[in-house]
C-alpha cells in the first residue's frame, strides 16, 4: 500500500458518490439516496482511517501520503496532495462528521423527493472538496478547492435553509469571495517570488523564500484577510451568525465545524509557513484581534435569544482561542490550537445537531420559546448539557485539553495574552449555563402535542460525538502525537523557539533532554 493514492481516493469516493446520488431518479421509492449517501460517507470514513494508519508520526518529511502530478505546468500548477498531522486530523474529523450529519438529516425532509436527494448529493460533494482543501500542497490547487467549496455550501444554505436563507447565503458568498479575491492576488504574487517554473506553486518550493519586507507583508495580508474572514475573526465575523441561523443544523455543522477551519488551518500552513517574518510582524495585532474575538463572541453569545446564533457566536469565541494559539507561536499553544480545531468540530457538531433535534420538536429557534424541557425530554437535555460542558471546556471533555494548552502557551508568550484569554472560561460558563437554564429548567411546559425524547437514530447521531469528547478529553495522545511534530516543524520554519522555564528543576531539565 506504499504508493496507494489514499488522498485522491478519499476525494474521489464522495465525488462519485455525489454524482451517483444526484443521478438517482427523484421518484424512486424508499428514498435510496439516503442509504447510498450514508454508505459512501462511511466508506470514505474507512478510507480516512486507512490513510491515518499509514501515517507515521515523527517523520522528517513535512508531508506524508504525498501524490504529485503535473497539472498545468505552463502556469506552474501541480496536482499535489499530502498531509501533515494537523491536516490529517482535520480530514479524519471531517470524515467522521459527514456520516453523522447525513444521519442527522435523515428525517429532515418529510416528503423525501428530489430536494432531499440534492441535499445528500451536495453534502457528499462538499466532503470531496473538504478533503481537497486540507490535502492540497500546491497553493493554487488549494485556492481552487477553497473557492470550489463555496458552491455546495451556497446551495446548501440558499436552497435548503430556513428563514432568510437567500440573504444569508448571499452574504456568506460575498464575504468569502471578497476574501478569496484578495487571496487570489496574493497567490499569484507569491508565485512570482518563488522559483516559478512547472512546479512553482508547490508549498515546498515557496517555503523559505527571501523576499522584500513590504512584499512579504502585503502577501501575508492577502492570505491572512481571506483566512480571517473564513475563520471568522472579529470584525469580519458577521456573516457567520446569519449563515448558521439560516442553515439546516447539519449544514451549520459542516460550515462552522469544518469549513471555517480552513481559515485557521490556512493561517498555519500558509501565513506562518510562507511568510514567517511578516507573521511575526503581525503577531501583536493578531493577538489583540484574537482576544477581542474570544471576549466579543462570548459576550454576544450571552446576549442571544436565537439558539443557532448563540452557538455561532460561541464559535467566534472559540476561533479566537485557535487564532491566539497559532499566533503566539509557542509549541504548546500551537498544539492546543491544532487540537482545538478538532475538538471544536465535534463540540459544535453536537451543539448544532442537538439544537436541530430540539428545533424540530418545538418548531422555533427562539430560546425563550423553551423552558422546563428536562422534564419532557430528559435524554435530549442530558446530551445537550454534556455538549455544552464540552463547549465550556470542562476537564475530561475534549476542548479542555486544547483550551488549556492555548491558555498556558499564550501565557508563556505574554502574561497579558494569557490573562485576557482566560476570561473566556468564565464567559463560556455563563453562556452555556444560562442557555441550559432558560431552555431546560423551570416548570413543565404546556405544549399542544407531546414531545418525544431522543430517538434511537438521534442517539446514534450523538453517540460518536460524545465518544469523541471523552476520548479527546482523557486520551488525546493519538491525535497529539501527530499534531505535535507538525506544529514543531511549522515553528521551526518560522524560526521561533519556545521560551525555557525561568527556573527549571532537575526533573524538567531532564525531560527536555530526553
Amino acid at each position, binding site marked *: 500500500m506504499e504508493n496507494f493514492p489514499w488522498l485522491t481516493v478519499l476525494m474521489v469516493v464522495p465525488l462519485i458518490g455525489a454524482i451517483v446520488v444526484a443521478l438517482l431518479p427523484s421518484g424512486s421509492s424508499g428514498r435510496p439516496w439516503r442509504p447510498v449517501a450514508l454508505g459512501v460517507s462511511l466508506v470514505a470514513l474507512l478510507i480516512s482511517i486507512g490513510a491515518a494508519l499509514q501515517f507515521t508520526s515523527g517523520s522528517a518529511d513535512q508531508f506524508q501520503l504525498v501524490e504529485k502530478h503535473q497539472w498545468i505546468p505552463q502556469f506552474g500548477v501541480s496536482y499535489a496532495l499530502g498531509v501533515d498531522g494537523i491536516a490529517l486530523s482535520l480530514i479524519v474529523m471531517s470524515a467522521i462528521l459527514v456520516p453523522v450529519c447525513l444521519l442527522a438529516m435523515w428525517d429532515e425532509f418529510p416528503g423525501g423527493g428530489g430536494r432531499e436527494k440534492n441535499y445528500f448529493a451536495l453534502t457528499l460533494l462538499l466532503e470531496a472538496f473538504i478533503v481537497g482543501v486540507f490535502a492540497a500542497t500546491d497553493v493554487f490547487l488549494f485556492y481552487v478547492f477553497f473557492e470550489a467549496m463555496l458552491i455546495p455550501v451556497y446551495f446548501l444554505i440558499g436552497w435548503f435553509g430556513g428563514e432568510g436563507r437567500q440573504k444569508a447565503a448571499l452574504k456568506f458568498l460575498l464575504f468569502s469571495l471578497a476574501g478569496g479575491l484578495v487571496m487570489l492576488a496574493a497567490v499569484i504574487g507569491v508565485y512570482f517570488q518563488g522559483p516559478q517554473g512547472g512546479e512553482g506553486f508547490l508549498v515546498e518550493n515557496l517555503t523559505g523564500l527571501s523576499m522584500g519586507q513590504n512584499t512579504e507583508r502585503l502577501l501575508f495580508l492577502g492570505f491572512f484577510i481571506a483566512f480571517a474572514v473564513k475563520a471568522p475573526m472579529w470584525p469580519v465575523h458577521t456573516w457567520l451568525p446569519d449563515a448558521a441561523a439560516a442553515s439546516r443544523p447539519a449544514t451549520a455543522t459542516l460550515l462552522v465545524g469544518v469549513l471555517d477551519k480552513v481559515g485557521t488551518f490556512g493561517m498555519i500552513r500558509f501565513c506562518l509557513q510562507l511568510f514567517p517574518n511578516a507573521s511575526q510582524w503581525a503577531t501583536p495585532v493578531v493577538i489583540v484581534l484574537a482576544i477581542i474575538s474570544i471576549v466579543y463572541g462570548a459576550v454576544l453569545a450571552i446576549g442571544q435569544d436565537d439558539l443557532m446564533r448563540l452557538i455561532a457566536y460561541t464559535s467566534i469565541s472559540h476561533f479566537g482561542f485557535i487564532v491566539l494559539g497559532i499566533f503566539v507561536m509557542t509549541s504548546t499553544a500551537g498544539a492546543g490550537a491544532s487540537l482545538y480545531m478538532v475538538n471544536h468540530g465535534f463540540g459544535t457538531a453536537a451543539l448544532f445537531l442537538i439544537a436541530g433535534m430540539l428545533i424540530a420538536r418545538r418548531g422555533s429557534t427562539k430560546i425563550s420559546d423553551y423552558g422546563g424541557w428536562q422534564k419532557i425530554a430528559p435524554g435530549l437535555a442530558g446530551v445537550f448539557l454534556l455538549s455544552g460542558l464540552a463547549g465550556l471546556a470542562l476537564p475530561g471533555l475534549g476542548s479542555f485539553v486544547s483550551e488549556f494548552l492555548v491558555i498556558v502557551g499564550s501565557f508563556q508568550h505574554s502574561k497579558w495574552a494569557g490573562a485576557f484569554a482566560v476570561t473566556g472560561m468564565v464567559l463560556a460558563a455563563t453562556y452555556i*449555563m444560562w442557555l441550559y437554564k432558560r431552555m431546560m429548567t423551570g416548570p413543565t411546559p404546556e405544549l399542544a402535542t407531546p414531545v418525544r425524547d431522543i430517538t434511537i437514530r438521534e442517539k446514534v447521531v450523538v453517540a460518536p460525538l460524545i465518544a469523541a469528547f471523552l476520548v479527546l478529553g482523557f486520551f488525546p495522545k493519538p491525535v497529539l502525537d501527530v499534531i505535535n511534530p507538525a506544529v514543531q516543524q511549522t515553528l521551526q520554519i518560522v524560526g521561533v523557539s519556545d521560551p525555557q522555564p525561568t527556573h527549571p528543576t532537575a526533573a524538567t531539565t531532564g525531560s527536555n533532554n530526553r
Partner: protein
Amino acid sequence: MTPVYTLAAAQVVTEVQPTVDASGAASWAWLLVALPLLGAAIILLGGRSANRWGPTLANVMSWGAFGLGAAILIEMLGRAGDERAQSLHLWQWFTGGSFEVNAGMLVDQLSISFVMLVTFVGSLIHVYSLGYMEHDPDKGRFFGYLNLFIAAMLTLVLADSYVLLFLGWEGVGLASYLLIGFWYQRSDYASAANKAFIVNRVGDMALAIGIAMMFVTFGSADYSTVHGGAAGAPEWALTAIGLLLLGAACGKSAQFPLQSWLGDAMAGPTPVSALIHAATMVTAGVYLIVRSNAIFDLAPTARLVVTIVGAITLLLGAFIGMAKDDIKKALAASTMSQIGYMMLAAGLGPVGYVFAIFHLLTHGFFKAGMFLGAGSVMHAMNDQVNMRRFGRLSGVLKHTWWTFGLGWLAIIGFPGLSGWWSKDKIIEAAFVGEGWQPWVFGLVTMLGAGLTAFYMSRLFFMTFHGSGKRWTEDVHPHESPLVMTVPMMILAVGSLALGAILTAVKFPEWLAPVTNGGHLEHHEPVLAIPAIQILTFVLMAAGVFVAWRLYWKADVPVVAPEGSALTQAARTDFYQDDVNEAVFVGPLMTTATGLVEADDQIVDGGARNLGDGVAGLSRVLRRAQTGFVRSYALTMLAGVVAVLGALWVMN
C-alpha cells in the same frame, strides 16, 4: 515570651517528602475513583429503571471505595516513615510542546486522610439519602450525581499534579452544580446552581493561570517538580502563584470575596448540603493551600493574604450566621466561618497547616452531622426551614436532638469534644508570631469562638428548645427512620470523640512529613496557652449564655424583629448580591444587550451597505442573466480564466 517561629525558620522547612512507587493496596488506588465513576455512569445511562436499583448500586460503590481506602490506610500505617508517600503512574494524559501532563496519583498521609473523610462521611450520606430521597421520582439521577461527586472529589485529592487536580476541581464543581439544581423545575434553584458554577469558574480561572505560571517558571505542573523547585524560584513568582491558588481556593471554599454562592447552594437536597457544601468539597480550597505548602512557605506575603482572607471570612460568616432564620442558611454561614478558621490556619504556615487539616476533619464530621440533623428536622416539619417556626423539637425528635446536640457542643468548642481539640489549636497558633499579626489574628479567632457559640446556640435553642412550640398548624413532627438516624448517630460519635482520638494517635505528627518536613516544632504564642484556653472558654460560655437568654428563656417572635443595622446587613449577606449585580452581572448583561445591537448596526452595518450595493448591482445583472447563483459562478469562472491568462502572458 519570645516567639521561636520566624520567617527564617520557615525557609528551612521546605523539604518535600520523597515518594516511592506505589505497591500493595495503594497500587489499586485508581479504583477509588473508578468505582464511584462507574457507578455514576451506569446509573445515569440507566434511565428510569435506575430509580429502582441505582440507590443500592451507588451505596455499594461508595462503600467499596471506603473499604479500599481503609485498606490503603491500614497498610500505610504499617509502613516505615519514609515509605508512606507513594506515587502511582496511570497514563500520559496529554503533551503540548514541552508541556507534558501525566495522570498519576499521590497517595500520602494528606491524601489518604481526605480519602477517609470523603468516603466515610460520603458513604454515610449515601445511606441517609436512601431514606431522605425515598419518595423522590428522580432518585436514580440523584444517586448517580452523588457517585459522580465522590469520584471527582477523590480525583481532586489523589492527583499528583495541579492539572489532574484541576480535573477533580471542576468535576466537583459540576457535581455541585447538578445537585444544587437537582430540583430543576424551580427556577430559583436552577439560578442558584448557575451562580455556584459561574462564581466557582472565577476561582478556576485563577487556578488555570496559576498552572500556566508554574509551567512558565518550572516547566511543569506536577507536584514533585513544582514543590521540589520552589526553593530555586524567586519570591515574586511564588507569591504570584500563591495568590492565584488562593483565588481558586476562595471560589471553591466560599471565602471572601467569592463567598456569595454558598448560601444559595442550600437549594440542593439537604444530604448534598451536608456532603458537598459542608464536609468535603468546600474544604478543597484548604486542601489546595496545604498541599502547596512548599510554595507558601517561601511566599510570606501570599500567606499573609491567605490569613487575612480567612480572618475576614471567619467574622463575615459568623455575623451572617447570627442573622439568618433559615436553618440551612445559618449552617451554611457557619461553614463559611469554620473554613475561614482553616484558611487562617493554613495561612499561618508551618505552625498552622496540620491544625487546618485537623479542624477540617473534625468539622467534616460535626457539620455533616448537623446538616443531616437539619434534614431530619425538615423531614419532620414538611420541609420548612424557618427556625422561627420550630421550637421544642427535642421532645419529638429525640435522636435528632442528641446527635445534633453533640455537633453543637463540638462546634462551639466545648472542652473535650472534637471541635475543642482542633479549634483551640488554631487559636493558639494564631497567637504565634511577631508584631501586630499574632494579636490581630489571635483575637479574631478568639472573638470568633464567642460568636460561634452564640449563633450555634441560637440555632440549637430555637430549633430544639425554648419557651414554646411555634409550629405552623399543618405539621406533625415525627422522628426520621433508622436509615437516616443511624448515620447521624455515627457522625455524632465522631463529633464527640474524633478530636480526642486523632490527638491520641498523634495525627498532627503523622501528617507533619507532608507539611512540615517531618518535624512539628513547638512555638510559643504571645499569650500563655492557659490564658488563651481560659479566655476562649469564657467567650464561649458568654456566647451560649446570651443565646440562652434570648432564644431559650425569652419568647422568640414568629416574625423576625427589624433588628440593628448590622443584623439587617448580615441578613442580606452584607449586600453581596447587590454588589455582584451592580459591579459584574448588570454591566455584563447591559454590555451583551448593547453589543448585540451594535454588532448588527455598526459592525455588520458596514458590510451590509457594501452588500446592498452589490445586491443592487446583481439586481441589474439578474435582468441580463438568469439569477444570482449562476452569475457568481460565471464571475468566478471568468476570474480563474483571467488569472490563468495573465500568468500565461507573463510567462
